[in-house]
């Protein structure tokens, strides 16, 4: 149940090779889907192009619900890439897990807190960067004492809390899903009765995990835009 990780050291930096591989797989799948879907682009869209345009409009809707397109348009590419990458990453761990020599190789990359926290921290650092870039240092700093100066400590805590919750929410959901799947798979492989008992909950939980994976991808992007808009937009 508790598997090790294929750790590897390069120049004193430790890599979890499983994470690296799964991130590459997720990135490759997303890239292939997007690349294939956007070949032969037409003004009258068909098939896959419709699908990609739907995703673009969906993310555009998320951004528009948080800020002006004038401010938010620059985050469009980030939003689309995030939602597709996280969704695909969430899905990767569902069909199976591969364990080699006690090391867990195939899993969702988002079932690792390092990965999700990195994404979350990137988003929050981006929000600070754009906050300073678009509103100036004064406007950015002013954001910490609004609406009341005594809220300053809470505002600082909020920044860290945002980062933590954004990363850990995604990690927790996906990791928990995989743990339960692993348990059910263990039960199924234990005996013929175990297989009979596990097959229905397995199917249910996999279906539910697809739903969770989609919802979490959506929530991650939604919150990304919310945090960005807090720093970027004039009123919120």
């Amino acid at each position: 149940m508790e598997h090790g990780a294929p750790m590897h050291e390069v120049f004193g930096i430790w890599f979890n090779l499983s994470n690296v591989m799964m991130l590459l797989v997720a990135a490759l799948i997303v890239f292939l889907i997007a690349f294939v879907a956007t070949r032969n682009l037409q003004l009258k869209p068909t098939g896959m192009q419709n699908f990609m345009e739907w995703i673009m409009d969906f993310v555009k809707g998320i951004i528009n619900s948080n800020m002006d397109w004038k401010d938010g348009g620059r985050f469009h590419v980030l939003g689309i890439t995030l939602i597709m990458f996280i969704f695909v990453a969430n899905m990767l761990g569902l069909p199976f897990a591969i364990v080699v020599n006690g090391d867990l190789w195939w899993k969702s990359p988002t079932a690792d807190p390092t990965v999700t926290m990195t994404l979350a921290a990137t988003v929050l650092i981006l929000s600070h960067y754009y906050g300073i870039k678009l509103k100036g240092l004064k406007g950015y700093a002013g954001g910490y004492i609004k609406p009341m100066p005594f809220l300053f400590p809470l505002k600082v805590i909020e920044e860290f809390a945002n980062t933590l919750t954004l990363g850990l929410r995604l990690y927790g959901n996906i990791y928990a899903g995989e743990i339960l799947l692993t348990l059910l798979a263990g039960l199924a492989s234990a005996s013929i009765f175990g297989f009979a008992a596990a097959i229905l909950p397995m199917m249910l939980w996999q279906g539910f995990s697809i739903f969770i994976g989609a919802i979490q991808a959506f929530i991650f992007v939604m919150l990304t835009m919310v945090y960005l808009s807090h720093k970027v937009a004039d009123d919120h």
Partner: protein
Amino acid sequence: MFFDHLVLGATGEFLNIGDILATLVIFIGLMLLLKKFAWGPLMGVMQQREDLIKSEIETAENSRLESQKMLEEQRGLLKDARTQAQEIVENAKKQGEVSREEIITTARAESSRMKEAAVQEIANERDKAISAVREEVVALSLLAATKVLEKEISEEDNRQLINETIAKAGEVQ
């Protein structure tokens, strides 16, 4: 031991700097690649479509206005044509009235002239006839008188006498 699982990234006693780097590099790399190969072209096409639709709407609006204008123009022309036609009909009617009047007048004049001519002729004929009859009567009377009287009276005297008698008779008549 049990709580070890609750520690984040509980895979060892070290921080996975490598994973952080890998995540960043892979995600940002993916984003840049997609921007270049997928989102950029797709956004371009969507923008193009938006422009196309905008221009189509504009064109439609323009042609609508133009057809409106043309319709207005045609309506005006039709109205003009109708007025003109009415005028022509009116003129023709007036012309007809005039020529009718003229024809009638001419005919009337002609007929009265003919009537007068006829009356004249009749009068002439009558006079002629009367003269002829008178002549005849004179001749007859002369013959009769000559025969009755059997007397040599100068032809001249007789004629004068008889003429007087006949004139008297004509007056009495």
